[in-house]
């Protein structure tokens, strides 16, 4: 149940982001519910920090916006030093299954490397690629694709 609620929160945060090009979601959204948020939880990360960053088509480099989100994540991970995370790398549907698995791994690793450079011990950060298997948004348009090309930080 808890996981379901969290997933819903993530989806809501994402919807709040933008119609066309997604913004790195989360920061500032859902302020009204802050009193119920457990510090150091996934919900805390989603609502107050931003749990995900987005990538260009067939890219795994981080935009300035993505880096800003990850800077906040790094600060947050320093605050909650006992929290470990898994970075999920995802791709949009425009690619073959195998290539997208590799691309998702590349994206997850790009996030992990950036967090490590900000001083987060690599042993706290696992990665997993879902390729195109777990889109965040269903749709065959640039907006959906852009929201699906993502790296999502998930509290273990």
């Amino acid at each position: 149940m808890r996981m379901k609620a969290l997933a819903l929160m993530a989806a809501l945060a994402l919807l709040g982001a933008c119609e066309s090009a997604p913004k790195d979601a989360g920061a500032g959204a859902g302020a009204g519910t802050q009193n119920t948020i457990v510090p150091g939880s996934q919900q805390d990360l989603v609502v107050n920090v931003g749990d995900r960053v987005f990538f260009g088509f067939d890219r795994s480099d981080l935009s300035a916006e993505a880096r800003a989100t990850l800077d906040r994540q790094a600060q947050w991970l320093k605050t909650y030093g006992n929290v470990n995370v898994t970075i999920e790398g995802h791709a949009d549907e425009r690619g073959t299954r195998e290539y997208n698995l590799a691309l998702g791994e590349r994206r997850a690793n790009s996030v992990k490397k950036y967090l490590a450079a900000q001083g987060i011990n690599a042993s706290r950060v696992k990665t997993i690629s879902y390729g195109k298997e777990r889109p965040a948004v269903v749709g065959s348009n640039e907006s959906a694709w852009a929201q699906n090309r993502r790296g999502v930080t998930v509290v273990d």
Partner: protein
Amino acid sequence: MTTTTRRFLRLAGLAGAVLLALGVAAPQTARAELRIDITKGVVEPLPIAITTFYGGGGRDAQVGADIAKVVSADLERSGLFKPLNPQAFLQTPQQLQSGEPRYADWRTVGAQALVAGGVQGASGGQMKVDFRLWDVTAGQYMSGLSYSASPDSWRRIAHIIADAIYKRLTGEDGYFDTRIVYVAESGPATNRTKRLAIMDQDGENHQFLTDGKTLVLTPRFSPTAQEITYMSYFNKKPRVYVFNIDSGRQEVLGDFPGMTFAPRFSPDGKRVVMSMAQNGNTDIFTLDLGTRRQTQLTDSPGIDTAPSYSPDGTKIAFESDRGGSQQLYIMNSDGSGVRRLTFGNGRYGTPVWSPRGDLIAFTRQQGSGFAVGVVRPDGTGERILTEAYHVEGPTWAPNGRVLMFFKETPSGGGRSAKLYSVDVGGFNERRVSTPLDASDPAWSPLIP
């Protein structure tokens, strides 16, 4: 896996099958015999009369009718044959059991070839099935075979007979006594349930092999068709596994530090070639199934994946973005001698070597569309067989004349994924029916 499933999947009963050429020698004549030339692309389907296999009555008659239907459906689906409506036939199955057909009667109904057969003992422990094939135009016997097997393997007998007819009339091996393993899909696109499933090439004898609790992808048969290698997210650790169809046992392959995926067996079945991704880099490895030794074949900083052996095992086709975009490459099976295969516009992936060795099938992505095509191993002769919003993942029938792939279509806010077959000339594209949505098909070799 249940006992029933296991018995069913083992394809029991045929081990002791007796194959006898029926004792009628084909008379040698100077006249060109009936033959379909399938190398010429589109051909007019050959009108063929397939009579109910004669069984007298009871169970034998039922099995005889069922076998004829399966043979007829197999041949029709190939696109090379046009089975005629049995209601027009002027000679009964019983009359065909003894002596020559009345060729003039068969010419009258438009048949160029004629198949008849018989079934005995279908209600007992051992069943005998025979068939004969005649060239109606020339008025001569072509071939015939007799089979003994357990009655519950009647479907396999029918496919084997269809293969024999196909081979006699085209000169090529058939592909009807084969199976398809694929990924059955259900549920919302954002959290799709994916299960391994297996069926005969005509969609019959469908079975799920996994329960759907774990995401599974890209199953492929071993050369004996008794094992399947695939990728599973079991315990949230995406790794390559092997599944034994007989025992239902699943086993992770190798001890790799990163995600392993895109597996395929070597043609001798002794190795599995696959990709491993680690630290943002994907390379190709083999795992020797005997010694469990891992060998790294590529070390480019790019994505090297989707490896596929040539049928002689000496080469491996794969895809790589080392040159800036996804393209096909070929290397020797020890990783040496890498050369680029495709230079066309678009991104090329999922190379699959034809069992004949003459072509490599691929998925091409160009603009917003996908295509499945073939190219010769020397890089020439690239041809597109089918194009759509999304087609992907070709697999070859064992005779290298037909491919299967999956097609995804936006549907009601989600996705519908279906299997299709198409011949190597790009003709005769057909939907392959599955109970649920379907992707990642893999065609088995002819069942041993």
